[in-house]
């Protein structure tokens, strides 16, 4: 099917190119052939108009992209406290970028159209103008200074975790090709760990130090539960290659580096349940389920299993190439109320119990 499709496209393009060569050739009949590959007035005119056409194409592509795919981006609905700051900065930067983009592309293509060459015309000898150049040096300086300052304040406030806020300490542990989380338990201190202490027979997969008193109440799980409104500080480890802890809904990302502990902290602001009930999310999920239902029809016709309907979850994805199954290294994140969290954590076994 794909092959057929590809062949049809190839044929279509071949015909289109042939047609275009014909058109250009017909238009050249009267032109002076001795000029060879050099543009004639006719070429200048045609390509000048095409430049305007191309400008329209760029604008149209921008508008279509925003209308059709503008709802996809994670630029609103951040699920963390710092996330809304990031989104604000993103929207401001986008506004600056689009203003500059629209103006400069217009000037570029309009000039290319307006000043297209004609025989006998002479260009303006205009080599330098200090005032003009000063203007377009200083304006970017001012705009960028604003963005840099705003950006740096945001960055500093994200990266400097406030220890006074008493964040919940959670370890995220990456390996080819799955994630594990370790809660620090009652004492909120993680036990020491090193890959050299890994003991598969005892199911000590994270290499936790059995002798460390802080480790006894640690809890190792395969699903991340966070409390809404409560700061969390992740301590991130990897046992084999680089991975990256990417939690797009929380605007959070940090690499997992073998041999060192990296950190990232944030405060979730909305529970999974609440997120599912936001109108944007309901639309998104419905849309995805329509797509999946459509796909399932094809699959069942081939005698394969239908796709499960999609239910929204916050996700932790791997975002650093880590090998064959990099594309499927994920962990669900559940944001819930303190009570729900307490009930959940009570049912988990501690490290000490798991050793028995």
């Amino acid at each position, binding site marked *: 099917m794909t092959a057929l499709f590809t062949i049809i496209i190839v044929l279509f393009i071949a015909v289109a190119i042939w047609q275009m060569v014909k058109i250009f050739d017909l238009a050249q009949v009267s032109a002076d052939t001795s000029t*060879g590959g050099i543009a004639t007035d006719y070429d200048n005119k045609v390509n000048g108009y095409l430049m305007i056409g191309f400008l329209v194409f760029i604008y149209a592509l921008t508008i279509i992209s925003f209308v059709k795919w503008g709802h996809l981006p994670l630029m609103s609905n951040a699920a963390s406290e710092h996330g809304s700051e990031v989104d604000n900065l993103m929207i401001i930067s986008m506004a600056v970028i689009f203003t500059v983009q629209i103006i400069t592309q217009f000037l*570029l293509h309009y*000039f290319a159209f307006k000043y297209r*060459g004609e025989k006998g015309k002479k260009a303006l000898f205009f080599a330098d103008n200090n005032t003009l150049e000063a203007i377009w*040096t200083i304006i970017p300086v001012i705009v960028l200074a604003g963005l840099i300052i705003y950006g740096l304040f*945001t960055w500093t406030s994200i990266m400097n975790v406030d220890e006074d806020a008493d964040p919940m300490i959670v370890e995220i542990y990456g390996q080819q090709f799955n994630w594990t989380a370790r809660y620090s338990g009652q004492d909120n201190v993680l036990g020491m760990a090193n890959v050299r202490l890994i003991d598969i027979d005892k199911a000590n997969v994270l290499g936790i130090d059995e002798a460390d008193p802080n480790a006894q109440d640690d809890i190792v799980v395969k699903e991340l539960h966070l409390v809404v409104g409560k700061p969390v500080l992740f301590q991130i480890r990897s046992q084999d290659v680089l991975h990256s802890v990417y939690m797009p809904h929380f605007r959070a990302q940090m690499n997992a*580096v073998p041999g060192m502990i990296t950190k990232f902290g944030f405060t979730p602001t909305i529970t999974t349940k609440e997120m599912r009930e936001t109108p944007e999310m309901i639309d*998104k999920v419905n849309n995805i389920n329509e797509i999946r239902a459509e796909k399932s029809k094809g699959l069942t016709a081939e005698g394969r299993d239908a796709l499960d309907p999609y239910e929204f979850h916050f996700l932790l994805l791997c975002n650093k190439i880590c090998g064959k199954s990099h*594309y499927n290294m994920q962990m669900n994140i559940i944001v819930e109320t303190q009570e729900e969290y307490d009930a959940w954590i009570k049912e988990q076994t501690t490290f000490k119990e798991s050793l028995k």
Partner: protein
Amino acid sequence: MSTHAVDTHAHDDDHGHHHKETFVTKYIFSQDHKMIAKQYLITGTLMGIIGVLMSIMFRIQIAWPEEPNVLFEALLGKWAPGGVMDADIYLALVTIHGTIMVFFVLTAGLSGTFSNLLIPLQIGARDMASGFLNMVSYWLFFLSSIIMLMSLFVEAGPAAAGWTIYPPLSALPMAQGGSGMGMTLWLISMAIFIASSLLGSLNYIVTVINMRTKGMSMTRLPLTIWAFFVTAIIGVVSFPVLFAAALLLIMDRSFGTSFFLSDIFIQGEVLHYQGGSPVLFEHLFWFLGHPEVYIVILPAMGIVSEIMASNSRKPIFGYRAMVASILAIAFLSTIVWGHHMFVSGMNPFLGSVFTFTTLLIAIPSAVKAFNWITTLWKGNLQMNPAMLFSIGFVSTFITGGLTGIILGDSALDINVHDTYFVIAHFHLVMGISAIYGMFAGVYHWYPKMFGRMLNKNLGYIHFWITAICAYGVFFPMHFIGMAGLPRRYYTNSAFPLFDDLADVNIVITIFAIIGGIVQIVYLYNFFTSMFMGKKAVQNPWRSNTLEWTTPVEHIHGNWPGAIPHVYRWSYDYSKPGHDDDFVPQNVPLKEGEEELQH
């Protein structure tokens, strides 16, 4: 100095005429810079075909994941059982595509071709400072290309750790099949490539400094030469660091050292490595990796500046600012590498510093963009294919460059780092732009290289379809990146969250296929015009630079008589007081005529 230089050339020249050129010395082991330029161009083109073909294959996989395809079955063999692409080979294709396009096409193919062709011709020299080193440089490049291609046929697969080859993934064969023999060959190939690049760069620097003809002061140099010269300096400063990184990685892989590795447990056993850091590798890699971006784009900028001025029949606007911004970009390019590492685990304060320096680089870039636009203003634009590609360059450079403001801002980078947003950004700003620069250069200097003209109508078709497809591929990618889709995923079907991106990916792939196919028009034009193109006249574009004062037929030593002297800068287009709208650099000033104090 100049007189001395000229004397040496006269000697070289005599020497050259007495030799009888055989087929081997003329076409294969040539020491003539014009022939070496053509060798670089053709090798780069062939590598480019392979690189683009790979990208089309993995784009098809992304759009129609895990569907059998005859193309895969035919080209990938055992890596596509039943025509379904294997996940390992997907990563290998992505890796080798990146490596080939960045190094083999846009560094060697672009810089190698045009630095070699234009430096001696535009500064008025008989050849490069060392023709022999120049030849060695090309053949090392050729050798490294061969080794890179050989690595595709290794049993366990070619390197597949991404073109950035971050360890430990690239260091441990048990982590990934491609990290065995495939990665060894990758590293050897790159080490040879770096040697080639350094020899080339040293030659360019020495030639520009020592061998300019009489009157060719630095402030009269065409912007092409400025760009090539500064590019060579960046290359000499940063490539050795990648060489060191590659060497240390080889040590870690083969001799058990622990520069980049520490505390690793893989496939049920603890490895002995202790005390190394993958972050160190990232620093070393990006110390080259970021300047590399400018090694790719600066020559394109130089080419575009020259072609734009010539085809606008106007001086380039703000020559001094253009030179200053090349220098500023070159300097800043060496202190911004950390913006690739905001979330690598390095100290967040360092992130702040790199945000600052990175956003600074937007200033000289903005000056360049505005100066190009002003160069068009009130010009008499000759819409040759080279000119179209130059205008296209400015367009994609702006579109791609602007999103750099988001990626360079550490706070925003957190969420779009390593997503398709990054792919969209760097493909537009350095991939497509640099390729446009290269196409512009080929269309413009083809008559100089081959003595014949390229067919302009095929050129127009090539440009317009390519331009539409380039935007069609990379503009929508910003949106799927902002939706959080990570790069280097073999398929997105493991995440129902991304199901609504499937149709965008299909649109992108269709544009990519069309864009890839239309390059056949260019290849056809390129190879047939060599023999069947219209014969070129000496100065077809009516340009000012010295290369157009040489005869159409190539001769060893470039000028049959004495080397022309230079009396003015290269941008005296449409100067008042002259009948023609161009005044070549070797035309003396008229009585009472002032040289522009640019």
